[in-house]
Every structure is written in structure tokens, then in C-alpha cells.
């Protein structure tokens, strides 16, 4: 710091310096303290008027030559400045646009310690950052559903999942298009509210993933970690705790391809975020909580070779191998997945002629169904049908006489497990919402009963 101050033609005091970082009981970490400390020293030695600094937050990393370098996590700090009703925030120039996303505070972007001092002396006029703030930007996504030929049945399932924020698992033989389909899910997700955008952008800011982008993220994220991911990579952690994949997927999709390939340990870690919508990372002397409310989408083969119970291919797996493969995902994880869909390869001789709905068409319907839910659940601390508690299911998924009869018959004849009951009702609620229907009708329920395909495989295991 001495070098930085001297290199900017200021005097470094030849005195004892006492630095008080309050509060004392929180461990201070990160490089963003040296710039404010340097300004503090200059104020204490009257090289800059101390009164001018009052009411400003100052963040940034100082290099040896006195230049101010950008840091991660600016957005949450700017939000804090606004909440504390401070005047403004002095930030590294490269971070200025990110901070300026927050309206109603003064954002001063500086290149060097000197510029900051000049600003407080009234000798430097910073750029007008607010006018430069870009429109919200989109994360990059691959493709469109129109490229997936046919597969209207699966697209419909994903439409329902996206509309009600239901966790979903796809099961099918190799090459049936599971991965291709999953990658296009972001293209049908509804837009985010301002609060959702802000929350998500904060996480990306802390993770240092805004990469020069200087505004709010407007599209929902899609994260697809490989099955070799570490626990820290998944849930977050490290010395300066970085958000993990579950948080980077906040308000969006966490896609786990080849689900049974993930270790039991990793799958177990998903339990907290799936239940709570957030993740708590414990470290030596503190815990950090990051939001982690995502829609889980998983894909898998029904067995190691992929052809268990396939009517047209012989399965080469011994029964016990199939058993251990499938049992890896049974239990608590499966309990949190509302929809199970089978994916079969499309085998039409003329793929060009099949109907293939595009993403925009689906997304429009999803948006409408989302709006209905937001209205219905206003002030109840939930947003989507998938979040309904058992008590809420009783209240919002009421069935008429005919529907009750259908449900009873289905449970008797289709060998459904008791666990499936509420999931079917929640999914039926979403189907009714997509149909803009106040009540769950028979046709909605009849459709909802089709999303139990993985259970079918489990049924065959018992014999």
C-alpha cells in the first residue's frame, strides 16, 4: 500500500498507523479493502478532505502502482449502499456499470487512487455511468425446440414442468434425444421478475461470472454439471465461499445428465437445496447461505446397457446390475421429482414432415400459466404449484366427483404408489393452469396420470 500511495504522488505518513476494522468479530476477507484503507490514510493525513468522504462506500483492489482493479461481488455491495441510504459508492471503473444497475445511488467509477482523491476534492468529474447501463442481458443458450423433430409428447411434459416448476426425470435408451431435449429447456422458461433477476445477478456477481457484463441477467440459468463434479463445485465453498452449481442454477434449471453416474455423496447433497431452496455452507468460523431454488431436470438410461424392458432390443445386463443401477436413484431423491417421462427415439421415415413445435409457442403458454400461479399464491410465500404443501394441495387441488372416481380407479388399476398421489395432483393443477381452468377437470387428471414412467421400470424389477 505504501508503494501505491507513493506511486500516485501522495505522502505515506512516517507515523504509527492504527487501523480499526469494525465489527471485530467477523473475519475480513477479500482484496477489496486496500483501496478504502488507502483513502482512509490519506483522509487521516489531510491529503483529502475527510468530510467529503462521509456517506460513501469505497471498494476496490489496489495495485502497486496505485491503479484500482476490478473485484467480484459489486452488485450486492451496491444493493447494501442503497439499503443503508448512503450517498454513493466509489468502485473500480470496470465495475461501475454493474453497480449502476442499482438506481438512486451515486456511482463513481475510478481508474486510480488519484482519481478518487481528485473526485473528493471536486477536481474530477466521473463519467455518467447510469446512461451507459445496458439492457438486461441473456445468458447464452443452445438451439430451439423446433430442431427436435417430433417428440411432441416430451415437449408437452417439459411445458408442464416449466409452467409449474416441477422437477422432472427423463428415462430412455441411448440416442433417444434426452440430452438434446434437456439443453433446450431454457428456451421455454418464463421470464424472471425484477427481484428474481436481481437475486440471480447477485450470485453471479459474487462468483465473478458477470464477465464484463454490466447489468442484470434476464434469462433463467441452465447449469449442467458433469457427474465428476466435486461437492464444493456442486453446493459451493472454498476459503472465500463461492456459490456452487445449485446456486448458479437459482431460479433456473439444474440438469443432471446420466443421473445414476453421480456418486451417492453428491446426490445426497441435493437434498437440502431441493427441500429448502437454499444452501448453507459451513466453514471454520462462519456459515454462508446462498439461494438455491432450481428446477431439477435429470436424464438416465433404464440400466447400464440402456435397453432394460425395451421391446425391440435385447438387454445385456444381469438382473442384479439393473437393480443396483436403478436403486441408486430411488428413495429421497425420487420423492422430490414430480414428473417421470419415458423418452423413445423418434423413428419416422421422413423426419422433415413431422410436426415440431417451436420454443416460442411453448414459452407463451408457460408464461400465462405462471401468471395464474403468481396471482393465486400471492402473499403465501410460494410461487409455483410444485411448492404446494400437503395442506395447500387439499385447498388448491380439489377434485370433483368424477375426478375423484378417476383417481381411485387409477390407483387400483395402474399400481401407483401412495407417494405418487400428491405429485399427480400438483401436476394436474399445472395442467389445469395451462388450460386457464379454475378447476382440475377429468381430462387434466387423466393426463397427469401419464407421468409415472420410471415407476414402471421399478415394477418390473420386483419380478
Amino acid at each position: 500500500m505504501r508503494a501505491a500511495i507513493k506511486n500516485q504522488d501522495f505522502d505515506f505518513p512516517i507515523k504509527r498507523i492504527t487501523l480499526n476494522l469494525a465489527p471485530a468479530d467477523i473475519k475480513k476477507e477479500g482484496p477489496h479493502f486496500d483501496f478504502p484503507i488507502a483513502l482512509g490514510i490519506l483522509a487521516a493525513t489531510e491529503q483529502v478532505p475527510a468530510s467529503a468522504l462521509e456517506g460513501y462506500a469505497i471498494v476496490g483492489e489496489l495495485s502497486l502502482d496505485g491503479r484500482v482493479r476490478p473485484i467480484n461481488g459489486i452488485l450486492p455491495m451496491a444493493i447494501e449502499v442503497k439499503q443503508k441510504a448512503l450517498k454513493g459508492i466509489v468502485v473500480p471503473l470496470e465495475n461501475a456499470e454493474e453497480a449502476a444497475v442499482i438506481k438512486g445511488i451515486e456511482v463513481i467509477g475510478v481508474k486510480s487512487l488519484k482519481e478518487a482523491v481528485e473526485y473528493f476534492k471536486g477536481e474530477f468529474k466521473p463519467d455518467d455511468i447510469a446512461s451507459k447501463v445496458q439492457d438486461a442481458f441473456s445468458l447464452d443458450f443452445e438451439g430451439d425446440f423446433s430442431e427436435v423433430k417430433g417428440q411432441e409428447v416430451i415437449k408437452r411434459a417439459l411445458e408442464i414442468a416449466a409452467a409449474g416448476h416441477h422437477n422432472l426425470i427423463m428415462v430412455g435408451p441411448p440416442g433417444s434425444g434426452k440430452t438434446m431435449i434437456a439443453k433446450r429447456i431454457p428456451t421455454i422458461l418464463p421470464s424472471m421478475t425484477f427481484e428474481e433477476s436481481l437475486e440471480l445477478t447477485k450470485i453471479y456477481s459474487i462468483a465473478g461470472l458477470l464477465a464484463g457484463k454490466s447489468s442484470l441477467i434476464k434469462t433463467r440459468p441452465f447449469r449442467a454439471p458433469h457427474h465428476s463434479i466435486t461437492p464444493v463445485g456442486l453446493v459451493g465453498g472454498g476459503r472465500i465461499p463461492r456459490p456452487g452449481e445449485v446456486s448458479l442454477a437459482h431460479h433456473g434449471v439444474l440438469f443432471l445428465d446420466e443421473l445414476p453416474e453421480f456418486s451417492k455423496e453428491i446426490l445426497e447433497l441435493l437434498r437440502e437445496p431441493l427441500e429448502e431452496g437454499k444452501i448453507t455452507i459451513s466453514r471454520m468460523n462462519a456459515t454462508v447461505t446462498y439461494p438455491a431454488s432450481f428446477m431439477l431436470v435429470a436424464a438416465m438410461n433404464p440400466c447400464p446397457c440402456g435397453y432394460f424392458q425395451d421391446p425391440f432390443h435385447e438387454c445385456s445386463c444381469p438382473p442384479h446390475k439393473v437393480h443396483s443401477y436403478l436403486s441408486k436413484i430411488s428413495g429421497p431423491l425420487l420423492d422430490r421429482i414430480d414428473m417421470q417421462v419415458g423418452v423413445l427415439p423418434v423413428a419416422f421415415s421422413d423426419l422433415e414432415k413431422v410436426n415440431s413445435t417451436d420454443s416460442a409457442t411453448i414459452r407463451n403458454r408457460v408464461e400465462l400459466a405462471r401468471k395464474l400461479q403468481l396471482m393465486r399464491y400471492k402473499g403465501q410465500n410460494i410461487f409455483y404449484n410444485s411448492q404446494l404443501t400437503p395442506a395447500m394441495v387439499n385447498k388448491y387441488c380439489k377434485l370433483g366427483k368424477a375426478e375423484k372416481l378417476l383417481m381411485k380407479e387409477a390407483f387400483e388399476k395402474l399400481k401407483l404408489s401412495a407417494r405418487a398421489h400428491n405429485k399427480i395432483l400438483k401436476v394436474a393443477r399445472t395442467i389445469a393452469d395451462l388450460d386457464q381452468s379454475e378447476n382440475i377437470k377429468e381430462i387434466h387428471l387423466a393426463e397427469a396420470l401419464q407421468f409415472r414412467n420410471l415407476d414402471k421400470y421399478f415394477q418390473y424389477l420386483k419380478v
Partner: protein
Amino acid sequence: MAELELLVALNMIPYLGPVRIRGLLNCFNTYSDFMNATRERLLSVPEVTPKICDIILEFRKKVNPFDEIERIKKLGAKIITIEDEEYPRLLAEIYDPPVVLYVLGEASVLNMESIAIVGTRKPTSYGQKIAEQIAGELAEFNINVVSGMARGIDSFAHKGALKAGGPTTAVLGCGIDVVYPLENHELMKKIVKKGCVITSFPANSKPLPSNFPARNRIISGMTRGTLVVEAAEKSGALITADFALEQGRDVFAVPGSVFSPYSRGTHKLIKQGAKLVECANDILEELNLRKNDSAEIKEPDLTLEESEVLDMIDYTPVNIEFIVQKTNKPPGEINAVITRLQLKNMITLLPGGYVMKI
């Protein structure tokens, strides 16, 4: 009339098959006579080679028929010999019938008219369905359904018979006190209640792969005919069918899809002359057992939409996507119709998302 202890003891000595045992029984009547026989006397039996003689000398002291009989009694099972009334008559007629059978359950079913149903351990849902159905129909005609209690078709055959309230017999490739496969524990209990579980292997025998040919011989040997439901090209079920032919019994086969690997074995049998079977009646007719031609088909009432969809579904699996594309209807509607057709018992949904008529 040979002593029970002698029969049990001979059956417990390894490498002594039914044919060698029959040879020994021509020379020995009592257990003590056999135990005291010299090497020379044993060798005078034409079926006994020097090597077999060594085995007999080694094992006749190790096996204890008294303990075995006591043990079986404690299990609530019993041992019947080839000379007993209860021994299955048809089995006694084959070239190499086992001299003793261990029986748990109702031994009287062993002399009812019996049909064997066998097939792959990994059936398709079509195979499961049809095995269960035909077994049920046979049971309704009071025919004892015999199978091997293995995974797959065997289990479904037993279940079908039990569901129809009929008798069924499971022939094991292990000791009567060994449950294999383990998951069939409950099924075994049910079979014992309604019919019986039998084996030619001494108590505590493990289900060694080498035991299964002998087991399969009993299955085909104690029945009038063997029905094969789904068998891949090289399948144990085809071996049972071969035994049936050797023993002069009938072989029946259920056809399947030309595309299904699990129908290759059954189609091969049909090409070789096995009778093609669609329902129990086809078997009963062939065996002049009893006929029933008043099989009435109920027409359930379907909506227009339901019949339209049903028309596109066949007895081979079809992808629901195909129906959506052909009808040009929203997939949600088609899925709802599929549920209704399922509940009306017109179609079945397979893992993965195929549907098929039933």
C-alpha cells in the same frame, strides 16, 4: 419294494443319476444290505463303473438318510418315492425318473392334469401378460400349472394360476428348504398353500447351474405338454421343450412380434412344428382335455376419440408420439385418452412410453 432310507441315501450320493440308481435297486432292497456291500458286489451291478464305485464307497458313509428324513419332517415337507401312489404318474413313465421327490404342500395336485409353462427370465410385458393369462385360464379348467419358480415367465405363470384360484406346482433346482430366487419368498408360500413345491435335490442343495437340466426334465416329464412363452434364441426354456419332445410330450409356443428378440426361440419352435397357442383353449383342444367355445368377448363402450386412438394401437408396442403425429392432436389430449383406455383394460403402457393392445 425298496426301503425309503435306501432310496433317500442313493439320491443323496453325488453323480448317481436315476438310471444308475435303478441299476442298484435291482440288486439291493434294504439300506443295511447296501451299506454292507463289498466293492466286488457293488461292481457286479452293470451300471456301476470302478469310478462310480469309488464315489459310492466314499459317500455312502457320509450321507445319513435317517437325519435327512427327520429334517424333512421338521420342515413340514415329505418325501415321496417312485413307488408311492402320490408320485406323478406321467413322471414315472419317462426314461430317467428321480426315485424320490421332496414335496412341500399339497402332493395330491401332482396327479392332476398338468401343463408346464416356461420362458425367459427377462420377459417383455407382453410375455408377462400372456403367461399370467394362459396360466389363469388353465387353472380355471382345474389344470395344474407347472413351472420352475424362476424369475420372469415362470413366476408369472405361477401367479396367474394362483390369481385364478387354481393349483400350481413349482419344481426347484435346489433343496426344498432353499428359497431361490430370494425375492420369490412370498410367492413360494402362496404356491405351497394352493399347490406344492417339489424337488429331487436333497435338503440344503444350492441352486447350481448344473442342477437345472434335471429340474427341467421333471417339469416336462410330469406334464402332458410344455408351453413356451417368450424365449430368446439360446434360452433354457428351449432345453425344456427339447426334453418334452424326447419324453414324447407336446410342445406349445406363444407367438410374438417378429421384431422382438424374445420371440426368436418361440418362433423357431413353431417352425419346427410346435403348436401355436393364443389361449388355453388351444392347448386343451390339442390334448382332448375339455373344450370351451363359448368365450364371449365383451365390447366396452368407447368414445369416438377413444376408438380413434385405439385403432392406431396394435399388439406390437407403438410409441405414443406416433399416435400424436398421425392424429395431429395435442399430446396432452392423447395422453388423457391413453389413461382412459388403460383404465378400460384395452391397452397397456410399457416402460419407456410404448402402448400396446391387450
